[in-house]
């Protein structure tokens, strides 16, 4: 795969090229916060930021997504038959996505697409039609711990192109065929660029101080972790508010609901969360995860034990640190996992 240069005064021209046949999105400043929005020029996009407040999972797994439609006319039997929603019409590019978030999508690929039956076409369609141009982190924040959960500030997993800010220009590393096509018109990298990027990578890794240890979590049986006393303590402070699930790039639980308005009917899926009491409640009133402790434990066990057990060791966390920043009662996932590992 080729290594190219994107000069900073050539970014506009590069983005114009991208916009021609694709919708282009990047982190932008929105209402004083870093979020995702459509961009056409370099000035509209952010180039120096830690990360977006919310993960970009919404591009592949929208917070509310129409799955199918029907004509809500009871007397018209054909009308009540569900018709699947049309696929994405235009390809998209996500520019300046952080490596941790790209890695998260690769973890979710393992869950949304498993076999012929577990084959989420809504997810797949958007994944296949979206290119990811990552921006390496040269300056991770204190809540980042990607290096301890299999990701990296300069990580390449899940990306089509990785941009590394080398000061006056970016090194653009093509990582897939899709990425190769995106950077084909850029000039080749100079001799020292790769070495400089490697130095920046090492420096960025060194800035990540805290982290999680997983060796004992991996070695222990499910029930040993499940019955560990730490959950009584975590449960006491947790509000079950679900903020962590909302901002998390790998949280992917959803609900499916039917909506009707006059003759229009649709089946939608909405983000849901395991912290909710209703999430698991049976029609009879019986609730298999009936206590706050059951629910907070489910979230951590799912990411750090259940997903690794079922998905070949892959961890359901990429160390982005959003939940650490946003938890209203300061639950720190690093401390929870280290307690599981104690």
């Amino acid at each position, binding site marked *: 795969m080729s290594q190219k240069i994107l000069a900073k005064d050539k970014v506009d021209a590069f983005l114009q090229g991208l916009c021609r046949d694709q919708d282009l999105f990047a982190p932008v400043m929105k209402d004083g916060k870093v979020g995702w929005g459509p961009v056409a020029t370099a000035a509209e996009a952010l180039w120096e930021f830690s990360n977006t407040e919310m993960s970009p999972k919404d591009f592949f797994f929208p917070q509310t997504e129409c799955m*199918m439609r029907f004509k809500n006319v009871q007397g018209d039997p054909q009308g009540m038959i569900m018709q699947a929603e049309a696929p994405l019409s235009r390809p998209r590019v996500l520019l300046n996505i952080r490596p941790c978030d790209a890695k998260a999508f690769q973890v979710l690929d393992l869950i949304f697409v498993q076999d012929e039956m577990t084959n*989420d076409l*809504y997810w797949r369609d958007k994944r296949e039609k979206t290119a990811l141009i990552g921006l390496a982190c040269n300056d991770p924040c204190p809540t980042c711990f990607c290096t301890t959960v299999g990701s990296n500030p300069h990580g390449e997993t899940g990306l089509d192109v990785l941009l590394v800010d080398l000061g006056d220009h970016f090194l653009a590393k093509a990582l897939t065929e899709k990425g190769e096509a995106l950077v084909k018109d850029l000039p080749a990298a100079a001799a020292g660029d790769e070495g400089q990027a490697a130095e920046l990578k090492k420096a960025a890794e060194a800035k990540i101080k805290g982290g999680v240890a997983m060796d004992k979590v991996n070695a222990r049986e499910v*029930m040993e972790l499940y019955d560990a006393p730490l959950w009584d303590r975590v449960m006491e402070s947790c509000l079950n508010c679900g903020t962590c699930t909302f901002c998390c790039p790998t949280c992917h639980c959803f*609900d*499916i609901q*039917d909506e009707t308005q006059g003759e229009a009917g649709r089946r939608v899926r909405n983000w*849901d969360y395991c912290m909710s009491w209703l999430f698991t409640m049976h029609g009879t009133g019986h609730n298999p995860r009936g206590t706050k402790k059951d629910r907070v434990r489910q979230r951590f066990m799912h990411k750090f034990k259940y997903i690794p057990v079922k998905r070949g060791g892959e961890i359901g966390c990429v160390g982005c640190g959003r939940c650490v920043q946003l938890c209203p009662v300061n639950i720190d996932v690093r401390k929870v996992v280290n307690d599981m590992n104690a």
Partner: protein
Amino acid sequence: MRNTYVPYPVSIKEVRVETEDKQLKSFWLQFLNSEDASAFNYTPGQFAELSISGYGEIPIGIASSPTEGRDLLFTVNKVGSVSSRLHNMKAGDIMGVRGPLGNSYPLKANKGKNIVIVAGGFAVTTLRSTMNWLLHPDNRGDFGEITFIYGARTPGMLLYTQEWTAWQQSGQANVHVTVDREAPGWSGLVGFVPTVTGDVAPKPDNAIALICGPPIMIKFTQPVFDKLGWQSDQIIMSLENRMKCGIGICGRCNVGPEYVCKDGPVFTKTQLDKLPREY
């Protein structure tokens, strides 16, 4: 590539009130498109999402057996908004079915063995499927003795009376049906399922047991099997949990790392002993 969230359209062919309290109704469903019927290849123990546009979906065990033809049978308890709506539907109405979902009872892997079935209440649905499959001439010869123990609160709460009476009369299976208390007109067994199981005393040699019922029945049946010398890997149970996607993604039905909808609903007791009791 098929979109597995989109239900196959079906029409309701027949509705039957199953129990005296009218809370359980059976629905025979017919595929509108014959290619959908061919694609819907299922085995006993699997379930499907019944889909009613505008109301939603509910996961229900398939009560018919593939040996009975292409129509599907579901027996549904009236509990929430989807099942209540379904109870108000009639023959000829259009709805959807999504599946087949989940794994099935390990029947083909246990050829040559004796099969003991223990069912309580309306958990008998997928075991009706199993019995019809086992007793079909194509399969009956592959198995040893078949014992069917089934209980409900009252005679009027027993499902599929016609079917189990026929199984009893066929001499192809040992059928023991019981009700909790004496009832007028009932000349059959009286007593709880665990007690009857103890009296029947199924032998563990070269056998598997399929147990499906309310938690209280399972709790008291377990020691009976233990006493008779059954091992955990011979005891097979079917779980149910709240579900949405039915294909192992949406995150609510899991019991530890296992998704009831995809890795289950059928588990051995050996498997369940290593999992949290989140069901």
